[in-house]
């Protein structure tokens, strides 16, 4: 690996600025629901995204999943300013983890859409249920398929 160009280093140097700008712009919409990210929050979220991608072994080429995630979750009745950043950190980490776990079978939009629907539906705002139960089931479904008659959790998928 020593002879290779370090893609992650390339990425880190060039990506942050436009990513920050796009997350900052999300405040315009999220603030209408009482949710605002400070510069420190943005740095923390980007830092945790970089770490999540590094640990999972993914490279982000766009401006990350956060803007999409913020627009999708900002109207959630389960979010308030106190748990906003922490929830985004966990959602973002879960997104990248399950994106890889599902072996690229779902698009970004499909996963985010699934997360929103489950979080507001069956999970009733429980991150633990969403991440450890529903997303894990979704990945198993993606990899192995499901037995339609027997799978009681099918409601999460469709």
């Amino acid at each position, binding site marked *: 690996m020593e*002879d*290779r*160009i370090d*893609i*992650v280093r*390339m*990425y880190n*140097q*060039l990506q942050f600025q436009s990513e920050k700008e796009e997350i900052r712009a999300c405040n315009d919409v999220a603030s209408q629901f009482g949710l605002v990210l400070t510069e420190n929050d943005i740095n923390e979220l980007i830092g945790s995204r970089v770490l999540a*991608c590094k640990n999972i*072994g*993914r*490279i*982000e*080429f*766009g*401006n*990350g*999943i956060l803007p999409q995630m913020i627009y999708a979750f900002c109207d959630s009745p389960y979010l308030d300013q106190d748990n906003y950043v922490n929830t985004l950190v966990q959602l973002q980490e879960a997104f*990248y983890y399950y*994106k*890889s776990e599902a072996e*690229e079978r779902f*698009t*970004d*939009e499909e996963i985010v859409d699934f997360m929103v629907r489950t979080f507001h539906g069956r999970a009733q705002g429980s991150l633990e249920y969403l991440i450890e139960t529903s997303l894990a089931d979704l990945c198993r479904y993606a990899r192995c398929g499901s037995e339609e008659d027997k799978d009681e959790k099918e409601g999460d998928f469709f």
Partner: protein
Amino acid sequence: MKQYENAISVSKEYTDASNQQIVMEKLWDLLKWQVRKYNGIDSTSLPIEKVQSLLESLLYTIYLVADIDNIPIDLIFQKNLQDVIRRGQTILEEKHKAARENRKLMCLKALKIRNVYYYETLKNIGQFFKKYDIYSAAHQIPCSIEYPLCYPISEKIKGITYIEEYICRIQIENDFLECFDQKQIIRLYESSIPDYEEMLFNLCDPVLTNVIGLAMIRQEVRTLNITEEQRNTIISTGCNKTAEEIESWIKDSISFACVILNIQATDEIAYLRNASRGLSIRLREAIKQEDLSHIFISLLPNERISPADFI
């Protein structure tokens, strides 16, 4: 494709230079462009292994253009890299087409000697042309190639360049073996590799070795048979020779054999010389031991060949 052998490390050296940032930005933009084409609107991220593979494919294509269009590496990074990639893909399409035709010729002129690995590999190369992806995996060889060449290709050679070279080398080996009576070739295999139809070995190798042995003592190379007396002559002639002298003796013998066999193409002669590189060390050791029986093979008489001979 010599330049590509060091593609990734050279790029790193280049990015260590004063214009490091510019090259990195250009490569990163190129990679983003390629990822967008690969992912479409489905996803903005990819597993790192896939990204590395895409980057290698891009670098392979860039270095191919540099090689074909004779552009120095440091200059090619100053060009619009998307244009370079498009030019590379055109070259790859042409190469794909030409290699496919060459593969057809190779199959039409395939040896009529049964060997599982030889025929399986010729068949498998056909898969390459179905699966090869010039857009996102140009550096890969998506088929199984097990049959070994007499003079192997460097593992650093990748993609269609490897296949082109493999087909070219197989054709040279086929042409060389065409110079001999097939029955004699099979007798040679039967005398040294009883289950030659199932064995993983190069069909050209034992023939070339015996041809060199016969040419060393200026005997008729087409017989492919080296007797005990002839082996002793080689030992007595070679015992006082230095390593360099033995090497030059082999080289000279190949030239002699090529004249006898009417092989005139310089690339074929060069290939046979390269293929025999390892022989000089083995030969020098065997001469010291005064035993060449495992290098230069005597053909067993037809009537004597039976499985019992090999027990």
